[in-house]
């Protein structure tokens, strides 16, 4: 640490001395903040530790790598729809024998399921053991009579958003068109009135503000998949970016 000069005797040094001290303070403050942030990240909370130690029925870790547990869904933005059940319409179309459109009232008259599922956001948080209610995507395929050549599902949402999902994940038992989580309706930030749920892929694949389910033969990368995110998005393989 250099000795402070006699600024009364050498006033021409004052500006340079003050600037040097300012830069030092700024650098120290930035370093402190960065270290503090890193420490908070490294000190994993109990929920995250417990989830890391747990195993799913399929043998995989309950918590995919690089994730931490939250007890709620975090709003992540997006171009929201109007959120109204009154105007909601879901189009089921593409490679199906009987394409159809269903409104909110009749969506709730389709065979319903309630599934416990975890969701994993690509930004690093996961919400575990949510109770989701809705209609299985494979049930919609059954009702519309999917054609054998279909290989992918495109979840279509408000303002042109799309997400592509291989049938393997879209036809999982807990892959749903869902309108309720833990007994409550979704807030607009979370996709009200109806959103997708594809638990085994990163959560952006679970399109909010759903407007359509389209069955296609060839893969059609969607909104985020054409903007640098991974086309498949398996959280256990950390398929975050393309």
């Amino acid at each position, binding site marked *: 640490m250099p000795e402070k000069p006699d600024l009364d005797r050498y006033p021409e040094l004052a500006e340079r001395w003050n600037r040097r001290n300012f830069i030092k303070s700024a650098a120290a403050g930035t370093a402190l903040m960065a270290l503090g942030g890193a420490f908070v990240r490294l000190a994993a909370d109990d929920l995250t530790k417990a989830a890391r130690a747990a195993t799913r029925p*399929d*043998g*995989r*870790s309950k*918590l995919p*790598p*690089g994730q931490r547990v939250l007890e709620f869904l975090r*709003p*992540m*933005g997006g171009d929201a729809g109007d959120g*109204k*059940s*009154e105007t909601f319409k879901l189009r089921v*179309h*593409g490679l199906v*024998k*009987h*394409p*159809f*459109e*269903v409104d*909110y*009232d*009749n*969506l*709730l*008259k*389709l*065979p*319903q399921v309630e599934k416990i599922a975890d969701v994993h*956001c690509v*930004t*690093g948080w996961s919400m575990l053991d949510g109770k989701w209610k809705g209609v299985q995507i*494979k*049930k919609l*395929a*059954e*009702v519309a*009579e*999917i054609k*054998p050549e*279909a*290989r992918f599902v495109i979840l279509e949402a408000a303002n042109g958003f799309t997400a592509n999902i291989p*049938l*393997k994940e879209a*036809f999982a038992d807990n892959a749903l068109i869902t309108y*309720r989580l833990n*007994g*409550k*309706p979704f*807030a*607009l*930030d979370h996709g*009200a*009135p109806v959103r997708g749920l594809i638990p085994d892929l990163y959560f952006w694949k679970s399109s909010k503000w759903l407007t359509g389910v*389209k069955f296609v033969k060839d893969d059609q990368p969607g909104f985020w998949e054409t903007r640098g995110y991974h086309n*498949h998005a398996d959280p256990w*393989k*950390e398929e*975050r970016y393309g």
Partner: protein
Amino acid sequence: MVEVKKRWRAWLRALHRDFGYAAIGFTVIYAVSGIAQNHIEDWGDVSYKATERTFSIPAIADSVPDAVAVKTVADAAGLGVPQSSTRAGDELRLEYGDGVKVTAIGMTVTVQTRTRRAFIGIANWLHTARHKKAWKYLSDAFAVLLLYLAFSGIFMIKGKLGLKWRGTILISAGFAVPVLYVALAGGPDGQRDTDAIAKAAAPRAKSTPPEALTPAPTLTTPPSEATPTIDANPAGSAVLVPLPPDE
């Protein structure tokens, strides 16, 4: 010649100053919303303030007329007549304007509100140029302005405080930070914890064939070509509106 050089640098400084003034508004918008976007995993989308409260009411029987059910729930929530309402399954949804929504499911009523935050809500909206027409080009212009500010800054001052000493050191430091970060972090693929990935996925029992060779999963109930009976109708009691096939 000396005069020409002096004038050239003076023009550079004058433009740098004026463009700097002009850039302040854009800079504040992009900087503040950029910090919000950087921390979205911690803070979520801060554009909106959302609230939710729940309370219980006596169950409303299916036989209660819609208008009575709506009034019961609206009164319990302390709100007036809704703009619209939907009664579906075990739900009664009341939609109000200005982001207020009330949903009764059985005996539980949930009141959800959502309002855009004044500054950050607009700044975040502006930050992503998608679905905006003129703003896309205005923000392009701002980016060009920033490039001018960066490059003109290099040549504004000559001598030891310019490129001969301080300028070169600080420019190098500015480039070194991202270069070092990428080198130390191993680039985009280096962020992945390969050991953790292997461990998380390891216990999977059987190997799966490549995606292209994976047969389409079969449905639990195969689509029937026969005329469905009421019990066999996979759509339950839902009324579906037929659509023409996609082209």
